[in-house]
C-alpha cells in the first residue's frame, strides 16, 4: 500500500509539532525518516497511525482519502506501528501484549455468549510469530517487564509484523539497543520488506539508514525538507540537510546555506 499525505499540521499550544508537512511512502519500499530531536517525526508517524489527529491536512491510502479517528481505525487498514516507547503493558505477558486491543474470542457459544478469549489460540499464534521471526524467548507467558530491552523491542516488532498487513511503521526501534540487537531488528525489517510490505523507519543511526532504506525523508522544524537517495547522497549530506546546513533545490541538487542567513544578520 502507498501512503500520501499533504499539508499535515499539528500544534500543541504554542509548539508547532508539524508544520504543513508532506509525506510519501511508495508500496514495497523501506522509507527512512530522519531529523533532529523535536523535529516532529514521532508526531508525523502518530498522525499516520491514527494516534494523533492532525489540525490540518489529509492522508490518502492508495489514493483514497482517509480520516483516522483513533489507532484502531489505522490498524483496521493494516497499518501497524511500533512506537518509540513501544506501547507495551509491562505487567502483561507476551501473548497478551501481541493481542492487546484486538483479542481473539473462542469460536462458538463460549466466545459469543460468554465472550471467552481464545487464550490457547492466541498463545500458539504468538509463539508461531516469534518463531517465524527467529525471536528466541523462553516462554510466551513471561511478562514483558522480565525481558531485556532488545527482547521487548523484538516483541513490539513481532506484534507489528504479525498484524501489519499493509504498512509497518517503526519509531526509533534501535535507539535503546546494542549492536547485536540492532542488527537483529534490521534483519527483521528486511524480512518484513521481503514480504512486500513497505516499512517506515525512523532512526538517528545513519549507517542503519543507509544500509536498509530505499529513500530518506529528511524532517526539519516540523516539515519535510528533502527526499534523499542513499545511492546518490552521502551520510554527511543527509546530516547537512537535517541540521539545515544544506538545502535541497527543486532539481534535487544540494546547496550550502550560509550561517548569515540563519542568524538573519545578512540583508540578503
Amino acid at each position, binding site marked *: 500500500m502507498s501512503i500520501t499525505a499533504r499539508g499535515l499540521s499539528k500544534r500543541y499550544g504554542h509548539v508547532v509539532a508539524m508544520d504543513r508537512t508532506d509525506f510519501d511512502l511508495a508500496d514495497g519500499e523501506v522509507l527512512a525518516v530522519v531529523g533532529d530531536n523535536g523535529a516532529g517525526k514521532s508526531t508525523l508517524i502518530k498522525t499516520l*497511525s491514527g*494516534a494523533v489527529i492532525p489540525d490540518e491536512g489529509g492522508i490518502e491510502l492508495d489514493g483514497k482519502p482517509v480520516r483516522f479517528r*483513533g*489507532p*484502531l481505525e489505522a*490498524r483496521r487498514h493494516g497499518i501497524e*506501528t511500533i*512506537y518509540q*516507547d*513501544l*506501547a*507495551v*503493558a*509491562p*505487567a*502483561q505477558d507476551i501473548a*497478551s501484549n501481541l*493481542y*492487546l*486491543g*484486538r*483479542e481473539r*474470542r473462542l469460536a462458538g457459544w463460549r466466545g459469543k455468549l*460468554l*465472550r*471467552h*478469549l481464545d*487464550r490457547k489460540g492466541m498463545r500458539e499464534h504468538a509463539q508461531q510469530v516469534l518463531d517465524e521471526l527467529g525471536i528466541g524467548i*523462553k*516462554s510466551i507467558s513471561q*511478562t514483558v*517487564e*522480565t*525481558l*531485556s530491552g532488545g527482547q521487548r523491542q523484538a516483541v513490539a516488532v513481532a506484534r507489528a509484523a504479525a498484524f501489519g498487513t499493509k504498512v509497518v511503521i517503526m519509531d526509533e526501534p534501535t535507539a535503546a539497543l546494542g549492536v547485536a540487537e540492532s542488527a537483529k531488528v534490521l534483519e527483521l525489517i528486511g524480512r518484513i520488506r521481503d514480504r512486500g510490505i513497505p516499512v517506515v523507519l525512523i532512526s538517528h543511526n545513519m549507517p542503519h539508514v543507509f544500509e536498509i532504506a530505499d529513500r530518506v525523508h529528511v524532517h526539519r522544524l516540523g516539515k519535510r525538507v528533502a527526499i534523499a537517495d542513499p545511492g546518490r547522497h552521502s551520510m554527511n549530506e543527509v546530516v547537512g540537510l537535517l541540521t539545515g546546513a544544506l538545502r535541497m533545490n527543486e532539481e534535487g541538487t544540494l546547496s550550502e546555506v550560509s550561517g548569515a542567513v540563519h542568524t538573519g544578520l545578512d540583508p540578503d
Partner: protein
Amino acid sequence: MTAVTQDQAKRFDPGEIFRRSPVVGPLLALVVAIVVFSVSTDTFLNLDNLSLVVEQSLVIGTLALGQTLVILTNGIDLSNASNAVLATLIMAMLVASGATSGWLGLVTGIVTSVVIGFLIGTLVTRAKLPPFIVTLGLFTILTALGRLFASGQSVPVKGGVLAWLGTESYLFGGIPVTYGMTLALIMFIVVWYALVRTSWGKHVYAVGNAPEAARLTGINVGRTVLSVYIVAGLIYGIAAWQALGRVPNADPNAFETGNLESITAVVIGGTSLFGGRGGVTGTLVGALIVAVLQSGLTQLGVDDLYQEVAIGVLVIAAVAVDRFARRRQP
C-alpha cells in the same frame, strides 16, 4: 524445551514467584494464620467458627471486590462503603414505609449505587478529576446524605427479601451455607472470569498498567475505566444487600471505616495500589486473612486495639512485598 525448564529450575528466585503470582504470599500468610490459631486455641478450628469467619467477611469482602476493580485501573474508591450504606437506607426506608415491595426496594437501592458509580466514572474519565479526590468528596456527601435521609436513625428490616441473604440457608455436605455466602461466591467467580477470561479484563489491566500504551493499541481507555466504576457500583449495591442480611437494620453510621477496610483487604491480597497488577483471588484471600486474624486473636484474648495494630502492620508488609518484588526486575 527441556533446556528451558532446567534453566528456570537452576535459578530459583523467590521474587520471581511473587511477581508471577502475587497470590502466593497472601495465601501462605492465610494458611500460617489458620494453622497457628488452630494449634493455639481449642475454639478456632471448628465448622461453626470457620463459617462465622466467612460470614463476618462478607460485606467488606464484597466491597473489596469492587475496590479491586477500581484499584486495578490505578484508581481508588473512598466512597464505596458510604455508597453501600446509603443503598441500605434507601432499601430499608422504601420497604418500611410501604412505598415499595421488597424486590422493588432492593432494585432501587442497587440502581442508586450503580448511578453513583456512573457519576464517579464520568467525573474521572470526562472531567479528568483524580479518583482520590472525587471519591473523598463523595464519601463525605453520601455519608451526610444517608444521615439526613434517615434523620440519624437506623431503619429496621423486618425479614422479607431484604434480609434474605442472612436468613435463608441450605445444607451443603452437612454444612449450613447462607444465600449470602453463595451470592458472594458467585460474584467472585463472575468477576474473576471477566478479569482473566475476557478482553474486558485484559483492557482493565492494561489501562491500569500502561494507559498510554493501552490508548495506542486502540483500547478505549475512558470507556474501560467508566465501565469499571459502573460495575463496582453494582457490586456495592449488592454489598448493601449483604449488609442487611448480616444485620437486618439499616444504620446510617454503619461501616464508617468500610472504605479503608476494603482497601486493606485488597492490599493484603497483593493487588498493587499503582494499578495493573493483582486480582480478585488475592482480595478473597486478603479479606479472609483479616477475618481470620480478628477471630483468632479475639479467641486468644488479644485486645481489639492490638488486632488493629496487627492488621496495620500487615498492610505495610504487603505493600513492602509488592515494592520488593518489583524492584528486582531487570
